């Protein structure tokens, strides 16, 4: 394989990596703080894309306002779900929240499909990138869509920002404290329940944001999150459950590796990430950046 093709695939991989990173970041924040394995993450990602599409259809809102409004709406829905349903399962086995979030996924997919069919007469809808980002740029070695470069850049910014807030700020310290030792944190006069809700909302808001970013690249359809979420879980496992830095780095790395791997040997495209996961788990059962069980 020549260098040009390799470079092309690296770029290509970074785009997919950006989606993996944003989604696994949300999963890591939620799992790390709340110990919830959120299987509904893919459906919430789809809901982000669908909300952007629906806002455009109903209110004529373009991409830019939707990029802010849709994740906020998805985040608010997340807060409602956490308050009304998930909060009732804390302290129970993790399989309960897995079942609940899986059920929510099926429900959301079918609801969106019904709405799409009855309101828009299609179950797969077009969404175009904003004027300023449509078209392609010549990078010398490849002609690449501007919009995809934007996705890589924005996703990097969001990931760094999230990591910074959680690891380096006072807000982050409170969040970490409320999840690691709720009793003591409560004793300091902090409303732990509200913080937990907030963290969940931000986590699913990130999924919503990834959804809006995906809408101009993939068609908006009810099952768009279903396939992606499986790869994302693999990314989370490789990176180490709950590790924020791990999920971001692994997200981008897996995207690039899968793209380069697919260029060298196409049939491996869909399985490479799982081969990688198996290999990593053999060597480091807690993932590349995860802490061993005892250290938690």
């Amino acid at each position, binding site marked *: 394989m020549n260098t040009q093709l390799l470079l*092309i695939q690296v770029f290509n991989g970074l785009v997919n990596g950006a989606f993996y990173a944003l989604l696994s970041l949300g999963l890591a924040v939620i799992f790390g703080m709340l110990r919830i394995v959120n299987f509904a993450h893919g459906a919430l990602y789809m809901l982000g894309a669908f909300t952007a599409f629906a806002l455009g259809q109903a209110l004529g809102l373009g991409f830019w306002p939707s990029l802010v409004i849709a994740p906020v709406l998805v985040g608010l829905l997340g807060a409602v779900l956490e308050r009304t349903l998930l909060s009732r399962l804390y302290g129970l086995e993790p399989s309960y929240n897995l079942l609940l979030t899986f059920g929510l996924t099926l429900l959301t997919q079918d609801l969106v499909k019904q709405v799409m069919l009855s309101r828009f007469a*299609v179950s797969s809808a077009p969404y175009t990138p904003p004027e300023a980002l449509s078209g*392609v740029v010549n990078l010398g070695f490849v*002609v690449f869509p501007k919009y995809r470069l934007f996705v890589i850049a924005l996703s990097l910014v969001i990931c760094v920002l999230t990591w910074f807030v959680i690891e380096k700020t006072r807000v982050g310290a409170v969040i970490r404290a409320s999840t690691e030792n709720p009793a003591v944190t409560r004793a300091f006069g902090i409303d732990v329940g509200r913080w937990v809700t907030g963290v969940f909302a931000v986590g699913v808001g990130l999924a919503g944001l990834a959804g809006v970013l995906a809408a101009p690249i993939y068609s908006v359809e009810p099952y768009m999150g279903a396939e992606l979420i499986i790869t994302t879980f693999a990314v989370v496992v490789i990176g180490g459950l709950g590790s924020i830095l791990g999920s971001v780095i692994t997200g981008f790395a897996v995207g690039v590796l899968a793209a380069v791997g697919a*260029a060298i040997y*196409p049939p491996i495209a869909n399985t490479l990430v799982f081969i990688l996961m198996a290999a990593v788990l053999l060597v480091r059962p807690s993932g590349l950046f995860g802490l061993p069980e005892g250290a938690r």
Partner: protein
Amino acid sequence: MKTTTMTALLAAALCAAPGALAQTLTGGSIKVGVLTDLSGVYSELSGQGSVKAAQMAVDDFMKANKAYAGKISVVGVDHQNKADVAGNKAAEMIDRQGVDVLLDLPTSSAALSASAVAKGKKIPVMVVTGGTTALTNESCNKYTFHYAYDNYMLANGTGTAVTKRGGSSWYIIYPNYAFGQDLNRQMTAAIQENGGKLAAPSDATPFPNTDFSSYLLKAQSVRPKIFGTMQAGNDLVNVVKQYNEFGLKKQGIGLGIGLLFETDVAALGQDAFAGAIATVPWFWNYDARSRQWSAKFEAAFGKKPTWAQAGVYSATMTYLQAVARAKSDDGDAVVRALEGYSFDDMFARHATIRPQDHRVLLDVHTVMVKAKADAKETGDLFTRLQTIPAAKAFMPLSESKCKM
């Protein structure tokens, strides 16, 4: 004594007369089974619309043939595009619900499976939405008829038209399963027969798949005249979306599509498809007859018909007329009435049912998708480039591997 005999005979004859028809129909009625995708990826292009189309055919037939009034009903069943489900449902529909014919059958694997089951039970099958040529080749059987289209017709129509219009070099991608592999083979053959060539070997893509960017980047570096995609349904929508995103059209690389349904164009907006060439057996605004029927369908269903749904209407009507000719719904009798039959209706023009392999031959059209600005009315999607006559549109009998 003589008078009583005569009276008895007369009475018997009088009693028998209205019942004569009922006696030749098993169970005294005909049940039309639409085995289709009611919930999945093909539910928009077939699904409930196909069930509605079959119902319309039944109603029209009963109105024109009073003897059958009230004796024909339609049942729609979901096969989820899965071969095993399709086989089970086909058996259940025939054995438990007393279905006399199976219709529609999107997804090649599901069509093949249901066809094999129905063959064992001697029930006619009219495949409208399934595409594989295996149905009239190695997997053909006495009870299966292939209506509307198949992969050979698509490849022959589009490959020839595009190559002749200057699309002399192609790069093709296809979904890696029976339908895609078959269509890629047929398309490549059609291109080469017309003096075209492949700019690079065809690539198999995972199925289903959302991200086609690496193939589009490859197309950029290979620079073919035509980027050919054999993807269907939602995968096709993604390919075409990304084809536009990567600006291939502006770079002078045209788009050739293996299988196109009206619903795909609706999903992405017709501008994204504008200029793409495909082959279809029918479209709603082809002529006055197709228009008239489509207006009726739209009034009843709320949407314009796809060519698959129009095909289901036509296939149902063709089946019922064969029952009328055979004066029986017995599978063998209906098959005899269908074989070699020539007809012409709102969907199938200059149509003949080839007795040797049960391929339904009909005129098909190579079309180019119009830009939105060129559309004269809602849903005006296609400019007709040419009509391929029934005799030339499908695989010649000499190439068929069918042994019935």
